[in-house]
């Protein structure tokens, strides 16, 4: 609690004690009622003061004004104890609200601890402690064990393991060594690292994330906008209803003035909009905060709301569902052993820098390779080379057929490399991308979370697309799409989806920016270090883990449910108490509950979002 809050607590306790004293002794009875003004003034003087000030500013209908009128009215009606109680509980509620909001703010601010204070940079005059913003690209910084990496950079020297939990929610440390990238915001756990800074602070991973989280509140969810608009009309309407209730029925001869004025006072107490106005944004704030602690960055309440109702989820293939790393997936020798086939294929390809050739080289465990004598690259077809007196061919089927070597066609998805030695067919290798571990499970989780269709959009060929689609259980596959085709396909999917639901597109964010923007919700994967992803996407999964998507949907659903509960709770109880007050069944105590009590309940309910349990 802050000092201000502690002071308030003492005022409440003192006033409460006095109030009880007056209640149990005869001092509070009959003509002694003005004694109640002492606890009233003690606990409520600032409310009265602010009501007066705000009236001067033309701010009628503000909660201080309403509370002042309601309590002064209660005194006037001879309900001195109630008047004090209303003020007392109002202040208790305010204090509680202030403490709860402070806590929520702090729990989000925990994220802000990512902000590095210093960077230790190596300069001519030695190791200098400077503001990270003052470090230039290309300078070398030192990060000692236990420190947070202040800037993105490449490891020049040293190896260590990094705690990336603050960025990714992932608890397993990641090992880094020379030549590898280290993202700012990670904590260096074991060894001294020297990093060559690759980006200025303003463009660093940490700065981007902080900016994103801080601005998340600006894009408001529909529920939030509704409640703000609603509150704008709610208070004046209820206040005018109170005036009408106090004046009209007695004029029409329906009872004594005192009775109707008392009922109208209830209205004034219930008319405070704070429970409404705070509960919904607090829920979304908590949802966004809870998600970001799990490595899921959501750029605004509206996206969280949208994520709660997904119907179609479309995926990019390479880098999203697959690792984006090619490897040899199939070896089909013809008349030789697998090792021999791999050996001669590698021998043929050893001078080539083509990605497929690199994969073949990696797949061959034998070293040394047969001595290469000469090699020629045939664009789009493969290589022809000589090694240890043999003439080798490795490449497409066309390459071998041109040389007059018959070979059977491979049907496996991926790129097929045909190999021949001295005019004899040795067999073929298939090089393909591999689905990510856990991708199949992640897609199952999505279906379980109520996603009606999963779609794969890929620029790759039909066979490769279908293979991944089948392996992972994807409903529909659209292959051989150029970036422009992907947008067109997403447009078609947008028209097909059920109204009120959303199309989610998941991409790796590097070449998918137009599609990410076009989809209802664009989700970028593995954004650690990728600027394009953070810019274009609405939701960013910080590590490459696809299972986070189902989790994001779960968090979104919980948020929306809690927001709805709060809305129904606040509107329901307020409406009920208003109705009961109008017909004379509710007293000031109930009105206080409908105001302060509901606020407290809504805040507690919203706070559940801050503590998202692990599934």
């Amino acid at each position, binding site marked *: 609690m802050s000092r201000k809050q502690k002071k308030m607590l003492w005022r409440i306790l003192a006033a409460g004690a006095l109030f009880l004293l007056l209640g149990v002794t005869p001092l509070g009875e009959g003509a002694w009622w003005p004694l109640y003004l002492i606890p009233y003034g003690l606990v409520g003087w600032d409310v009265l003061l602010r009501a007066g000030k705000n009236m001067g500013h033309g701010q009628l209908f503000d*909660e201080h004004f309403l509370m002042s009128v309601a309590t002064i009215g209660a005194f006037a009606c001879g309900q001195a104890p109630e008047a004090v109680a209303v003020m007392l509980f109002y202040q208790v509620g*305010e204090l509680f609200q202030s403490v709860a909001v402070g806590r929520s703010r702090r729990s989000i601010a925990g994220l802000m601890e990512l902000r590095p204070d210093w960077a230790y940079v190596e300069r001519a005059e030695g190791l200098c402690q400077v503001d990270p913003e003052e470090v230039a690209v290309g300078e070398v910084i030192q990060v000692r064990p236990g420190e947070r990496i202040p800037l993105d950079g490449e490891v020049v020297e040293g190896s260590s393991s990094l705690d990336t939990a603050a960025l990714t929610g992932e608890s397993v440390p990641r090992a880094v060594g020379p030549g590898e990238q280290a993202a700012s915001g990670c904590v260096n756990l074991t060894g001294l690292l020297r990093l060559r800074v690759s980006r200025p602070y303003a463009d660093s991973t940490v700065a981007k994330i902080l900016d994103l989280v*801080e601005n998340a*509140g600006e894009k408001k969810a529909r529920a939030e906008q509704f409640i703000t608009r609603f509150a*704008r009309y709610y208070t004046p309407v209820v206040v005018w209803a109170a005036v009408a209730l106090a004046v009209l029925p007695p004029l029409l001869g329906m009872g004594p003035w005192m009775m109707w004025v008392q009922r109208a006072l209830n209205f004034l107490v219930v008319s405070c909009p704070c429970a409404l106005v705070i509960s919904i944004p607090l829920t979304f*704030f908590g949802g966004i905060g809870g998600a970001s602690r799990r490595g899921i960055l959501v750029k605004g309440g509206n996206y969280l709301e949208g994520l709660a109702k997904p119907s179609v989820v479309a995926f990019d293939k390479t880098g999203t569902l697959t690792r984006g790393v090619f490897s040899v997936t199939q070896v089909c020798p013809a008349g030789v052993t697998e090792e021999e086939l791999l050996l001669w294929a590698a021998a043929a390809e050893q001078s080539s820098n083509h990605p497929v050739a690199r994969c073949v080289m990696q797949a061959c465990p034998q070293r040394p390779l047969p001595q290469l004598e000469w090699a020629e690259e045939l664009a789009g077809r493969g290589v022809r080379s000589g090694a240890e007196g043999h003439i080798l061919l490795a490449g497409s089927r066309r390459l071998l057929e041109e040389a007059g070597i018959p070979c059977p066609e491979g049907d496996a998805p991926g790129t097929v490399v045909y190999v021949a030695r001295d005019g004899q067919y040795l067999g073929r290798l298939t090089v393909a991308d591999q689905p990510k571990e856990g991708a199949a499970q992640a897609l199952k989780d999505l279906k379980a979370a109520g996603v009606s269709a999963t779609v794969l959009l890929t620029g790759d060929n039909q066979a490769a697309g279908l293979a991944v689609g089948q392996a992972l259980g994807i409903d529909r596959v659209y292959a051989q799409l150029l970036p422009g085709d992907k947008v067109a396909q997403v447009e078609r999917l947008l028209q097909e989806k059920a109204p009120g639901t959303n199309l989610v597109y998941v991409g790796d964010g590097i070449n998918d920016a137009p599609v990410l923007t076009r989809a209802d919700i664009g989700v970028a994967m593995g954004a650690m270090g990728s600027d394009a992803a953070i810019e274009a996407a609405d939701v960013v999964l910080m590590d490459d883990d696809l299972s986070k998507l189902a989790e994001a949907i779960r968090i979104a659903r919980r948020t929306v449910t809690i927001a709805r509960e709060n809305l129904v709770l606040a509107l329901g109880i307020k409406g009920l108490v208003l109705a009961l007050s109008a017909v004379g069944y509710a007293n000031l105590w109930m009105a206080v509950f409908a105001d302060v009590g509901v606020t407290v309940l809504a805040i507690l309910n919203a706070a559940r979002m801050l503590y998202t349990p692990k599934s």
Partner: protein
Amino acid sequence: MKKSFVLMDLECAHCAAKMEQAIARLEGVNQVSVNFLAQRLTLDAQDDKFAALVEEAGKICKKIEPDCRLVVK
């Protein structure tokens, strides 16, 4: 120009909404958003009037919530 400011001691959610409305009505403001939970005011306004508008926004905040201070970073 677009800039963010901290609103110290912003305690009342309804007031935040009122501040947003009042500041949005000022001439020269393109867009304004008051985030109650992050205690931030983001102002997007015409460059030549920016300084004057920030001052005006600060006054509005103080008027609506007397304890609240707009901190210019």
